[in-house]
């Protein structure tokens, strides 16, 4: 009986660890989403600017003047990168979700098994 309890506790701990991992991944996914939104906003803003508009980039404490095409390229590059990151994180989320689902069924199976054994033990006693 104590063995079963210990085993169950181990399983639950593993399950909780998977859940925390999943939460961390979801947080990362949300952060990427907000970065993507911000960059998209900047991209739209640049698209609506005149070609000779003065664009500055904040580097540390100073503003550096930048070409419009250069700035647009930087933003497009960032958006590409963020898109790739989102894909990568989503794959990880899916993987982690599958793992934790599997763990959960394992726990439920184990629990019913223990219950059946207990029922059998009381019935035969």
């Amino acid at each position, binding site marked *: 009986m104590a063995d079963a309890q210990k085993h169950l506790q181990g399983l639950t701990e593993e399950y909780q660890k998977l859940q925390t991992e*999943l939460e961390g991944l*979801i947080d990362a996914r949300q952060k990427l989403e907000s970065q993507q939104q*911000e*960059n998209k*906003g*900047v991209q739209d*803003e*640049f698209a609506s*600017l005149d070609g000779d*508009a*003065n*664009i*500055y*980039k*904040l*580097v540390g404490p100073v*503003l550096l003047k*930048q070409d419009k095409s250069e*700035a647009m390229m930087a*933003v497009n590059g*960032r958006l590409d990168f963020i898109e790739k990151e989102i894909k990568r994180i989503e794959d990880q*989320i899916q993987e982690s*979700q599958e793992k934790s689902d599997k763990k959960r069924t394992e726990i439920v199976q184990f629990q019913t098994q223990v219950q059946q054994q207990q029922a059998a033990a009381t019935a035969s006693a």
Partner: protein
Amino acid sequence: MPPPNTPASASGSDDAPAGSVNITSLPVPQLRSLQSRLTTELEHLTTSHAKLRAAQSKFRDCVRSINDGVIGSEKKETQGRDDILVPLTSSLYVKGKLTDREKVLVDVGTGFYVEKTTAKAIDFYNGKVKDLEANLQDLEKIVQGKSTHLRVVEDVLRQKVLSGEAAATAAG
């Protein structure tokens, strides 16, 4: 991620669409977890709402600063007066002079600043305020939906607990 939200039928009517679960048929522990999940969701949405409001008022402040400070308004007697106090920290100011009342630098996000005329800058900020307003309205609808949801779940839960207690006293 939590399992997909089971679309609980709020009214408990018989003609609920397929795949939905009548929440009155759920046991108390499940109702409790549903309740706590809805509460966390609602809290999250409310903080987002407050953050959006704060951002919106910040943009409104920007518009006001341009109108009163840079363009200058006759009513506030800031027109034509170039003397300003520049904040170096939140409690330290130095005297300065406005040299350009035509153009401002606008933070468009991700570390980029764009030089704009005052009129264009005001347009930019007003656009932001409008976008945020639309977002806020969407969010309000969601918050309302969630809170009715939560109320229904709480009602059912209360009934269940009460009737459960009654059954227990009757049996005991």
